[in-house]
């Protein structure tokens, strides 16, 4: 899948909205080393139909919890190389606190809820990336109230 231009995406996301005073963004990229395995290529698989639904649900959840203006999620699929961009999350809001927090929330939920899977090509052969417990922990802290700086609505 085609690469994205973060600057262009942000320009489009906040275009025409003078209430926006803050834009927070996260970009995930491909590393050349994962769990001590050298990574030549990273192939991302997804579940068409459910992927779109899951991402929309995550963004809706963020809109319900924080007073944000808009949010964008782009996730590439197919074969990628080290240093390639994988994912982009951007959130606009009036003030920075809600934008930062909602951006982090969307990313944490995406990592544990959205149907994407990574397969690495390594010198020892192909390898499916295993889910990390730390990602579940990162997502679970959002279940409590006020886990981070910005209180949910």
């Amino acid at each position, binding site marked *: 899948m085609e690469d994205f231009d973060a600057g262009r995406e942000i320009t489009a996301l906040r275009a025409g909205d003078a209430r926006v005073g803050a834009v927070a963004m996260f970009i995930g990229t491909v590393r050349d080393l994962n769990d001590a395995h050298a990574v030549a290529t990273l192939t991302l698989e997804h*579940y068409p*139909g*459910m992927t779109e*639904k899951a991402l929309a649900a995550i963004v809706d959840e963020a809109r319900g919890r924080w007073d944000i203006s808009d949010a964008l999620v782009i*996730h590439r699929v197919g074969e990628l190389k080290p240093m390639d961009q994988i994912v982009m999350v951007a959130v606009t809001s009036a003030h920075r606190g809600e934008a930062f927090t909602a951006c982090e929330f969307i*990313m944490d939920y995406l990592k544990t809820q959205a149907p994407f*899977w990574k397969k690495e090509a390594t010198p020892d052969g192909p390898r499916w*990336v295993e*889910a990390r417990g730390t990602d579940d922990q990162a997502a679970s802290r959002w279940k409590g109230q006020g886990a981070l700086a910005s209180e949910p609505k």
Partner: protein
Amino acid sequence: MPRTITLVYLARLREAFGTGGEKIELPPEVGTVSALTHWLAARGGAWAAELAPGRALRIAVNHDLAGGETPVATGDEIALFPPVTGG
């Protein structure tokens, strides 16, 4: 009336089962997600190994994450996959 459902296998499970999915006729005794995975595991081989109790497995019914007690009905699309690793 035949009770046909569509099964979708993703990522490691697609490779282990050698197919991206299939249409099956539900046997009368299969009414829930957990009954379905038990029934599939009884095929043996990769099915028994991947669907063994204790293996991390995620299931979506009609594109929503489901639990073991989620009902299975005619026409459903049921996807089996490992825990997700995107982002």
